[in-house]
């Protein structure tokens, strides 16, 4: 997954710059810390389900069992005897899928809208800017609530798509501003004189010059999508026929797990979400410092 890939793989940069970025990347404690924690959680999400001995929704264990080494109930069981470990790793996987898909869709829309508005200017910019402002002002979470409430079957993909469709405006606006500042540079004029098409100029000349920015934008949208999905799931609009981290928290609250002190049921899902999103944020600060020499610790 790109979230853990080396951030220095920016094309169109001379070899020296790549090597310099890599040098600072490996020396940056925030970046190394954030990337390794995210990577560890990702590995857990990929391989964890292979170790689960029970289905995430299967009943049959002892009721409200505290974490134990026996029978594969490493994280204990729910009030109804479901395996918390199996639910946890399933939810973790879903969180990464929603994050990648929702964040990816939002990034793609933000790039199309931001680049087009910034490069074309004029009436196209006016229209796209209006669209961005409208979606920015609408409380998208409330919108998602209404849409999800009317869906009879809710899937993880629909959830991710709708999150992606509603969370792009701030990124589009930032990209538009960045594009504006690049459009009047000499190298863009030169590309235009040499007869390249607009899309070629945008993706071969402009985009590579903000590749670090694009990558950081994707990370933020990725983390945001995970949190939005967890909130939707907690409110009772999670995907049908599976279990997510947000749904685990919802079910534990609904079944009075707090009053019964079944901490193994409601602590892991929130802790995992916090760890993933927090390490993504820390990684982002590290990346910012690597690409922006002014911010490096002195």
């Amino acid at each position, binding site marked *: 997954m790109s979230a853990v890939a080396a951030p220095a793989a920016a094309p169109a940069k001379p070899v020296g710059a790549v090597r310099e970025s890599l040098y600072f990347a490996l020396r940056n404690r925030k970046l190394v810390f954030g990337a390794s924690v995210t990577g560890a959680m990702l590995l857990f999400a990929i391989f964890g389900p292979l170790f689960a001995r029970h289905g995430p929704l299967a009943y049959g264990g002892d009721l409200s069992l505290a974490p134990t080494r026996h029978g594969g109930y490493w994280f204990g069981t729910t009030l109804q005897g479901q395996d918390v470990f199996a639910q946890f790793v399933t939810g973790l996987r879903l969180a990464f899928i929603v994050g990648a898909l929702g964040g990816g869709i939002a990034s793609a829309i933000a790039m199309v809208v931001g680049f087009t508005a910034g490069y074309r200017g004029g009436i196209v910019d006016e229209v796209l800017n209006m669209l961005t402002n409208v979606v920015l002002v*609408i*409380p998208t*979470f409330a919108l998602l609530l209404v849409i999800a409430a009317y*869906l009879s079957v809710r899937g993880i993909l629909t959830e991710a798509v709708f999150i992606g469709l509603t969370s792009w405006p701030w990124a589009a606006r930032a990209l538009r501003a960045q594009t504006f500042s690049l459009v009047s540079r000499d190298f863009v004029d030169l590309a235009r004189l040499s007869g390249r098409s607009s899309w070629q100029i945008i993706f071969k000349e402009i985009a590579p010059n903000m590749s670090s920015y694009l990558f950081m934008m994707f990370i933020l949208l990725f983390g945001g999508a995970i*949190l939005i999905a967890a909130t939707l799931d907690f409110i009772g609009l999670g995907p049908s026929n599976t279990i997510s981290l947000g749904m685990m928290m919802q079910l534990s609250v609904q079944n009075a797990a707090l009053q019964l002190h079944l901490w193994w049921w409601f602590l892991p899902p*929130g802790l995992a979400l916090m760890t993933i999103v927090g390490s993504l944020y820390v990684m982002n600060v590290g990346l910012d410092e690597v690409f922006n020499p002014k911010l490096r610790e002195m």
Partner: protein
Amino acid sequence: MGRYFLRKLGIYSLTFFVAVTVDWAIPHLMPGNPVLTLMNRLQIQDPRVAQHVYHHYMRAFNLDLPLWKQYWYFWVSLVHGDLGTSILQFPSPVTSIILHAAPYTLGLLIPAILLSWYFGNKVGALAARRKVLDNSALPLSYALTATPYMWLAILLSWTLAVTWHVFPVGFAYDPTAIRGLSWAFVGSLAYHWFLPFMSLFLVTFGGWAIGMRNMIIYELESDYAHYLEALGAPQRLVRKYAFRNALLPQITGLALVLGAVLAGSLVTEIVFSYPGLGYQIYRAITNEDYFVIQGIFLFIIVGVLIANFVVDIVYVIVDPRTRIGMEGGRS
């Protein structure tokens, strides 16, 4: 300046129009007859009740009319403040349910947003470029801002309320208290308000502190800050100017985070059984009470638009540049 506000008002009217249209269109866009789908899901046993609910829905959606007329009537009833009737709490109109729940949500949201903004900015500004404070405040802020709202609420409720009994587990006030303007009742309200408020405040606080810290560092690296330093201005003065400049994007940020904090307050209310809009939405979703969901959506839209407009006005008051030649390019 007039043009700036006109432009803003234009965007807000358009947003309102789009939101209302979407709110109307969603039940119509779903495949099949939405009323039949609803009836299937309600699974009412008594045929007489089923008949009644069916007719209620048919009349409420105006499904026997042509589409444009349905849309028109939706606006007409909206203008009259009629958002339909709740199924779960029949026969209360949705409007009265919202008006009863909204004060609780606003009472959580407004203090949480304003106080976290104030303290977050203060702490963030203090922490910037100060090793010891930065190394403690920054990781904490990142942890807080990455925490899902409902999880912090669960954590606070489990530790402070369930385990140590310092605060009540839920509800807006002690059920045995007599409602009225007595000290006992107000005290009970505040006592029950504190934990949900605190969990909203803490998560939001983290975001502001990080934002301010980063902005101050950018400002301290700018030319005017270096120039001031070169002139021999005391560090305190330089930081004061940096703070003032860094505050502007934070004001714009107020409008941007509104949606996220609102979502946070909805789920926090669920954890604490706090009878605001979030709790009503949760009940409506688990009981398929669609008019309540759609009505609360419209209410939230209007609230957010008003809040955005207030932020615009504050921005113009705070930033003198907007008063001179503001073209509306910045928002």
